[in-house]
Structures are given as structure tokens and as C-alpha cells.
């Protein structure tokens, strides 16, 4: 079932084999069926969108991927093997980073510190050497700081580097969250509505960032978004969910013309 | 000028007890100033410092006052006393912990600057048992005695003594600890109700006393078989239980009530002049009398010191000498207007704790007053003395102290 066949997209990116595969996932909360028997895969290097009406179970799906929700049924395959049940932080250490729909930044810390938390899994110094600081710990800190600063540069948030996150407007917070996730240098990046609450200009910026990340670092991206323009333009393949069920899966064009998708979600055929 | 700091606690959980003591202590010195112009012609300077019964504040008070020529400290809390034992000794200032503090400080050979005359807790335990012996024609064998105690260093003090005495007199001892603050004692009193001890002794403090007495009333424990230590025997402890507390007993090392000539003097020279400490409404209460008594002993020691050193302006070191040579006799007390106010005793270099004379008082709920129902009787020195030797020796060893008085 693992198909490792790779191909090259129209704009010259290489899409690899299957990186992650969800098999027959079902998730219930008491009586609420958030996800019912959904399967789909994410291939290496692609931008995979998940769309669907409100309450369809998209965020829940991301939570399953990042190990926060444990599905009652189904398996998660990652890098060619079934992922055993593990705690979310272990999932993160396997190279999966994400952003959240309701921003989950560390409000009490500065932007820089928030981005640096993304580097935590790359920092290994023990308690004692950190307490003494001089030497190895400082060295490690600086190396990671350099990575973080690069990402801060990349996302153009240098000017707010030292600002406490709680003072930022909504849109910038989203960007900082992206920076934090990128700082982890993940192999799979999950984005939950990264562009909610942005105007077109900002969405353009954000799109650019996402494309560049995908391009430059080869990061695989799974993304939830309600702006159809963005989804259709950016993604290689789209999964459509409704009421916890999968109602469509395919290239943007296929999805766009799928009657079930139009009925459940788009309302009108999107240009 | 003679400086006496008063480390009082008019606030905090034990304020109700601290206030009358502090008032009595202060009023006595005011009386001396007003009536006699001080001690030996030297005016007394009383510095009150509020500790709130808190050890750290006690330290602060000590440090703040010791520089001003303080002659004597009455720490009024076991915790503060323990702080001050080494500190005051090093600073050469005597400490008088009257009816509390470290019992083995009685051994003057080890504790040069600490005095705890006229009695200590172990004396208290022994006097209590003596009273029970009296009630039972000298035989306690087969009787059950329960000790309800505050679960702290203070509360645990009598245990050792009571255990020794149990061996000697053959009674059975039950120990019932009550955790601070002691608002809930159902468990302890249900156990008493079940096991029906013949007598209950109590080492309680603060709200624990009131609750214990109330619970005893509730389970209809015969109050005359219930004896508290002197810190569990003030008006504060019995009044909340109302009529039920009638007959409750408590130990004492000084007399009660205001039926002494000195109270007339206090009235004319202090209260009527508006010089009374606090609200001036505590005269004659048990703890007021205790403060009065403590001040009297301090003043007498100062007088003795003035005589020994032949100067009116004594120093702390001289004060210490005076305390070590203090002699309280009935005549002395009578001339002071306090006949039979406390036991007679003498302090010596070896013995800083007096002769261990205590008495029993009883509460009359109708008249709302305490009365002394026994004479001052001596504790069982045969049992206590070895314990004191043992404990003080341990302290001496731990702190490299050489024995004095030899």
C-alpha cells in the first residue's frame, strides 16, 4: 500500500512517497462523532489541504495527527510504520510541528522566546550546565538562537522580537506561531487556519511564506483553511470533510467540481 | 534608669492571653514608678515590643531592645525562649521564662543566664499527679489518666514526666495529641468518652483550650476530673463553655483574684490616674496576676542585685547575679501587698528553677471566678531531678558548655 513513487509538479517541486497515512480513523467524544472512518495520506514535500464546513472535524484530525486526541479506531502510519500510541511531545520529537486555530502562543514570553521554544527539541544541555551557563550551554544557546533569528528574519518579524506576545495584534500572533513551528525544522508542518483574520495583503504574505518553506526546506505541509482562494492556489491535493466523514479527496480542480463538495461546503462553484 | 523590655503579644491567635499578661507586667512597673519612684530610686523604663507570639518578630524585638540596656527578658513563648537561650547567654542578659520554655534550664550549672523559677512544666505534671494522688488517698494504681496535648514542643513537655510517674504510681497513661490550632477535637473526645479515663490532664493553648472544655462538657465528662496546665486555666478558656465548665481545674503557681492589698495601690496609683496598660479591664484575671507576679519577681531580683552590687543603676550582669540570689519569702510578699501570692522559694547557682511548688485552682462558673483549692505543694523532685540532669547534660555536651558553680 505504501507507494513510494515520486513525481514532479508543474512548478518544479518534487513530491515524494507517502510520509503519513491515516487509516480508518474514527474519533468520538461521548455522543459526538467528530471523525468517522477517514483515511487519507500526505506525501513528502506536498502541500495538503483539509477543508470542510465548521465542526466537520478538521481540527480534530490535526489533533489526532499530533497525538493530542487518541482515536478510538484506526491507525496512523508515519514514515512507513504504524505509529504506536505516544504522548504529544513524543510526536513532536518525531519532527511534526504545528500551529493552532485558537492561537496557542506562550503569552507571557517575548516573540523571540516563543520562537526559541520551537528549538527546544534541538537543545540537549542538562540542568547543571545550564545553571552554570558559561561554556557549553551558552554555546548551544547561541547556535539555536541563530537558527531562530533566521526564521524571524524570514518571516519579517524582527521589529517585534523583544515584544511580549500578549501585546501583539491577532495577525502578527499567527505569524509568530508559524515562526515557532518552523523553528523546530519539522519534516511535517500542520497549519490550522493560518490565515484566519487576515486581509488579502497579509494572506499573500503568508502564502508566500508557506510556499517558500515548502520550497526551500522541502517541508511537507498539511493545512486547514477556509479561504478557498488560498486553498485552491496553494495546495497540491485537498481532502474535504463533512460531519466527520470524508466527502472528497483529490487535486484542487477535482475537488472544486465535486458536486458533494459544492453542496456541503462551497455553496457555489468557486472560480 | 532600669530598662525592662516586655515582649508582649497583644495580637495574633493568642492575643486574648497575651493582653492580660502584658497589662499586669506593665501595671506593676508603673505602680513602682508612681508609688515608689522606681526601684531603689531608679525609674523603670518599660519597653513594650509586640511579638504576636511569632519567633521571628521575637528575634527582632530582642535585637531592637537589647542595645538599650535591657536587664531582663521575659520571652513569653517557648519558641522565642529557645532562640534566646544561646543568644542572651552570649550577650550576658538574663532570661526569665516563668512556667514555660526549656525545663532543664533549671540547671544553673549549665544555663548560666536562664531562669525558670518558680516552676516548670515537669513540676506541673508532677503537681497534677500529686493532686490526683490526694484525691485517691495516695493510690493511683489501676486508674486511667489521659493527657490531651497540643501537638507541639510545648504540648509534649509533660509526657516524659508523666510516663516516669506512671511507672512509679501505677496509673495507665493515654496520650491524645491535638493538632494546631485545635478547633476540631471530636476524635480525641470521642475516644475519651469510650475509654472513660478517670482523669484528663490537658496541655492546651489558645483555641484548643476552649474547644476541649466545651467538648468535655458535651460528653459530660466530670469537670472536677479535668485538670489543665496553667496555660489552660484562664477565664478565657472557661467562659465560652458557660455553666458547663463549672468545676474545671487548672494548675497554678501564683494566686488568683484581686483580693490583695496591692490591688488597692494599683487602683489609686495606676488605674485612677489613667495610667493602666491596655484597656485597664483585666485586673485580677488569672493572666493579669501572672504578669503582675512576673514583674514582682523581676523587681525583687533587681532589688537584690542593687543590694549585692551596692549600686542602684545595675547592669544586665548584675541583674543576673540578683536573680541567682533571689529569695522570695512570705514576709517579702506580705510587705509588697501580695501575701501568699506565690510559693516561697530561693534561687541558687545550681538551681535556677525554684522549688517546684504548684497549686490547683478551680473554676466557679456561677461566680465567674477561679479559686485556689490547694496549698502550694512541691513536685516529685526524686523523679524530676534526674530528668533535668540528663537533658541539661545533653545540651552542655552539644554546645561545649562547662559546668559552673563548682
Amino acid at each position: 500500500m505504501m507507494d513510494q513513487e515520486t513525481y514532479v509538479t508543474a512548478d518544479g517541486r518534487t513530491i515524494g512517497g507517502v510520509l503519513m497515512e491515516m487509516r480508518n480513523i474514527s474519533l468520538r467524544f461521548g455522543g459526538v462523532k467528530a471523525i468517522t472512518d477517514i483515511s487519507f495520506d500526505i506525501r513528502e514535500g506536498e502541500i495538503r489541504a483539509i477543508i470542510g464546513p465548521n465542526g466537520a472535524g478538521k481540527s480534530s484530525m490535526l489533533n489526532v495527527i499530533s497525538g493530542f486526541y487518541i482515536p478510538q479506531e484506526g491507525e496512523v502510519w508515519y514514515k512507513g510504520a504504524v505509529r504506536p500510541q505516544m504522548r504529544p511531545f513524543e510526536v513532536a520529537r518525531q519532527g511534526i510541528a504545528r500551529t493552532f486555530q485558537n492561537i496557542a502562543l506562550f503569552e507571557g514570553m517575548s516573540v523571540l522566546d516563543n520562537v526559541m521554544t520551537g528549538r527546544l527539541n534541538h537543545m540537549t544541555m542538562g540542568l547543571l550546565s545550564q545553571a552554570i551557563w558559561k561554556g557549553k550551554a551558552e554555546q548551544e544557546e547561541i547556535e539555536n538562537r541563530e537558527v531562530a533569528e533566521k526564521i524571524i528574519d524570514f518571516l519579517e518579524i524582527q521589529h517585534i522580537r523583544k515584544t511580549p506576545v500578549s501585546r501583539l495584534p491577532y495577525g502578527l500572533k499567527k505569524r509568530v506561531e508559524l515562526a515557532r513551528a518552523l523553528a523546530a525544522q519539522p519534516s511535517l508542518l500542520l497549519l490550522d487556519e493560518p490565515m484566519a483574520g487576515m486581509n488579502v495583503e497579509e494572506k499573500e504574505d503568508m502564502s508566500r511564506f508557506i510556499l517558500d518553506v515548502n520550497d526551500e526546506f522541502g517541508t511537507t505541509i498539511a493545512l486547514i483553511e477556509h479561504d478557498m482562494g488560498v486553498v485552491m492556489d496553494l495546495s497540491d491535493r485537498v481532502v474535504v470533510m463533512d460531519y466527520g466523514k470524508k466527502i472528497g479527496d483529490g487535486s484542487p480542480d477535482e475537488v472544486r467540481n465535486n458536486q458533494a463538495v459544492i453542496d456541503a461546503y462551497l455553496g457555489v462553484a468557486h472560480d | 534608669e532600669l530598662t525592662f523590655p516586655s515582649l508582649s503579644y497583644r495580637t495574633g491567635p493568642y492575643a486574648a492571653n497575651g493582653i492580660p499578661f502584658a497589662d499586669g507586667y506593665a501595671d506593676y512597673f508603673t505602680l513602682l514608678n508612681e508609688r515608689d519612684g522606681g526601684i531603689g530610686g531608679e525609674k523603670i523604663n518599660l519597653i513594650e515590643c509586640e511579638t504576636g507570639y511569632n519567633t521571628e518578630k521575637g528575634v527582632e524585638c530582642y535585637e531592637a531592645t537589647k542595645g538599650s540596656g535591657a536587664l531582663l527578658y521575659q520571652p513569653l513563648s517557648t519558641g522565642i525562649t529557645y532562640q534566646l537561650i544561646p543568644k542572651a547567654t552570649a550577650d550576658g542578659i538574663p532570661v526569665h521564662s516563668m512556667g514555660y520554655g526549656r525545663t532543664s534550664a533549671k540547671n544553673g550549672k549549665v544555663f548560666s543566664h536562664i531562669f525558670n523559677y518558680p516552676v516548670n512544666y515537669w513540676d506541673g505534671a508532677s503537681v497534677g499527679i500529686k493532686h490526683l494522688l490526694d484525691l485517691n488517698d495516695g493510690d493511683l494504681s489501676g486508674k486511667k489518666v489521659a493527657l490531651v496535648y497540643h501537638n507541639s514542643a510545648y504540648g509534649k513537655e509533660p509526657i516524659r514526666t508523666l510516663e516516669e510517674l506512671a511507672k512509679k504510681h501505677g496509673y495507665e497513661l493515654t496520650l491524645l495529641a491535638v493538632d494546631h490550632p485545635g478547633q476540631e477535637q471530636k476524635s480525641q473526645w470521642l475516644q475519651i468518652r469510650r475509654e472513660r479515663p478517670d482523669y484528663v490532664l490537658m496541655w492546651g493553648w489558645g483555641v484548643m483550650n476552649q474547644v476541649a472544655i466545651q467538648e468535655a462538657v458535651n460528653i459530660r465528662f466530670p469537670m472536677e476530673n479535668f485538670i489543665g496546665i496553667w496555660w489552660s486555666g484562664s477565664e478565657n478558656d472557661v467562659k465560652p463553655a458557660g455553666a458547663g465548665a463549672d468545676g474545671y481545674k487548672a494548675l497554678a503557681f501564683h494566686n488568683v483574684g484581686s483580693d490583695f492589698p496591692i490591688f488597692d495601690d494599683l487602683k489609686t496609683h495606676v488605674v485612677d490616674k489613667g495610667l493602666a496598660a491596655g484597656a485597664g479591664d483585666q485586673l485580677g484575671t488569672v493572666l493579669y496576676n501572672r504578669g503582675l507576679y512576673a514583674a514582682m519577681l523581676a523587681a525583687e531580683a533587681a532589688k537584690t542585685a542593687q543590694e549585692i552590687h551596692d549600686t542602684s543603676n545595675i547592669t544586665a550582669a548584675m541583674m543576673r547575679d540578683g536573680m541567682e540570689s533571689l529569695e522570695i519569702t512570705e514576709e517579702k510578699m506580705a510587705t509588697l501587698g501580695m501575701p501568699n501570692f506565690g510559693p516561697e522559694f530561693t534561687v541558687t547557682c545550681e538551681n535556677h528553677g525554684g522549688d517546684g511548688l504548684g497549686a490547683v485552682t478551680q473554676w466557679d462558673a456561677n461566680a465567674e471566678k477561679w479559686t485556689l483549692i490547694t496549698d502550694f505543694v512541691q513536685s516529685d523532685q526524686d523523679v524530676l531531678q534526674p530528668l533535668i540532669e540528663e537533658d541539661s547534660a545533653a545540651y552542655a555536651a552539644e554546645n561545649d558548655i562547662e559546668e559552673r558553680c563548682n
Partner: protein
Amino acid sequence: MFYREAGDFKTSYPEDGQTFPIKLDRFGFFAVLFIGFAVIPFVINDYWVNSVFLPFLIYAIAAIGLNILVGYCGQVSLGTGGFMAVGAYACYKFMTGLDIWIGGVQYALPPINIFLSVILAGLVTAFVGVLFGLPSLRIKGFYLAVATLAAQFFLVWLFNKWAWAYNYSASGQISAPERSIFGMNVTGANADPWVAYLFCLVFLAGLAFMARNLTRGSMGRKWMAIRDMDIAAEIIGVDPLKAKLSAFAVSSFFIGISGALFFSVYLGAVEVGEVFGINKSFLVLFMVIIGGLGSIFGAFAGAAFLVLLPVFLKNTLVGGLGWPTDLAAHLEFMIVGGLIITFLVLEPHGLAQLWRIIKEKLRLWPFPH
């Protein structure tokens, strides 16, 4: 205007990450260090040491420790008093020669040097702290705060009952015997005030340095992440077990040391229920909050404030105005309570934040926006 930071550029990350990035601050810091180590020891007397400096230094250590747990890691603890007691009793056992019974045989260590005793006491407390920190994995917020009271009450009860802990002394109190370092008495009644002062200052300086380093590095970020949003922290890769327990360990280490110093250097004799009761827990928590959660400077400010304020009030009300002591003490309660409220209303994030805002204002002064 007065407070300048413009023109103070950083060209490397170590420079940018230093504790006092602004020259003026750095200068002030060294001045304070100099005064603390080289001036004060020569001018202080018993009163200042015992009433002001020792409690300040020792409480500052405790406040830094608690701040790590509450301010940085977000785990509210009301067990500080109990943990200080562990430090105090451990220190007592080490300095008087720890005795252990193994298989009916008693082995006794010789008394250990006071400096080491204090550090070992800190380590023992760290261990106990981790034990009581375990529930924090399940229990959060105020539930945890109340749960830590279990530690508070249990530990105090234990040290009251466990005769081994107080070397079977008749009264159940522990008293610090005389101990010295470099031939100078640190504990006991004959300790010179300046020696005791320096002894505590060295601990404070060392620990503050460590706390600062821990909190600015990856450890500190883990803690803060857990504090701000524990779920998100876990999802981005923070192991909550390790993060919380390490915070408990480090914090308890600090608190244990402060307990050890509190007992051995400051008070000299301790009765556990009274000295390390729940009020102590609250007092230290106050310091942390008044000073500012998540700020080392705040811990200092809070400790200074709450040590000095009562002394100051007492001296003015009783000494200066001649009020009766009890009225003064009651008023003190009201004033301390009132001030706590006032500060919180003025600036909920504590003195540290107040100071930050003043700086920001100074920067603008005298021209408003």
C-alpha cells in the same frame, strides 16, 4: 531622558542575551554587588543583621526558588513552609552528624561542614520536592495549590512526631550548635554578624546567578511554556513530566537552602510548627507576587518589601508616634493587607513590572507621546 538606552547597540548574541543589556543597569548592578560584599559587612551591627539583612537574604533565596515554581513554571505551591522545614531539619541532621539505622545497627556520619550541610539540605529538599510534585502531572491550578498544602501539613506533622529528626531532644526543638567556616563562627550565639551576613550573601548571590541562567535558557523556556499553556507546550515537544518535576526540584533546592539558613544562621533554634507553619508559605508567596511573577529581580524586591515594611511600620508607629503596640500591630496588618491590594490594583504584575513601566515612562519623559 535620564534613563538612556539608545545608542547601546549589541553586535553579538551573547551580548544581547546578557542579564543587564543596558550599560546603566550593568553599572548599577556592579555597584550593588560592591556595596553588598565590600561595604555593608563593615558597617552593620547585630540589629541590622538579625532584623533586616539575614531575613532579607534568606527570604530572597526562598522567593527566587518559589518564583521558579510559581512564576516561571506556573505551578502554585503553598508548601513552602514544609519544604523549608525539610531543609532545616536536613541541615540539622547533617551538621550534628547524620545517624542511620540499617539492619538494627546504627551508623553515624561525623558532623559535616556547615557549608556542605546547607547544600546537602538543599538536595534532600529537592528530592522531597519532586515527590510532592508528582501530583502536579494530573492536578492543576488551584487544585494543585491546595494539594500542596498536604505537603505543608504532613511535613510539619512529621517533624513534630519523628524523634529521629530532632535527635530525640526532650522538647522536640532543634538548636543549631556552633559551627564555623575558615575558623569564623557562622552559627551559634557567638557568630559575628558580618560573617553570618556574608555566608548568606554568598549563597544568595550564587543561587541568584544560577536562577538567572536557568530561566534564560532552554530550561526556563520549557517552564514558561508549561506555565503559559501546558497543552500547547506538550504538543510542541515539552515533556511536562520532566519540566514540572525539574521545576519542583530546582525550586525545592532553593527553598531547602533557605530553610537550612533560616534555621542554622538566622534563628538558631526552631520549632517546626511555629516557624515553618502555613504562614511561612503565604509570606513567601506574597513576596513572589508582590515582587512580580516570573522575575528574579521581583523576588528581591518582594522580599525586601515584606521584610522591611513591618520593621519600618513598627518603628514609625510605636517608636515614632508612640502608639500602643497592639493597635500598631493591628494597623500593621491592615496596612500590609491594604498595600498588597493597592499594589495589585496598581500593577498586577508586581514591583518588577512597575519598575519596567517607570523605565518606559522615563524614556519618554518629559515629552509624552
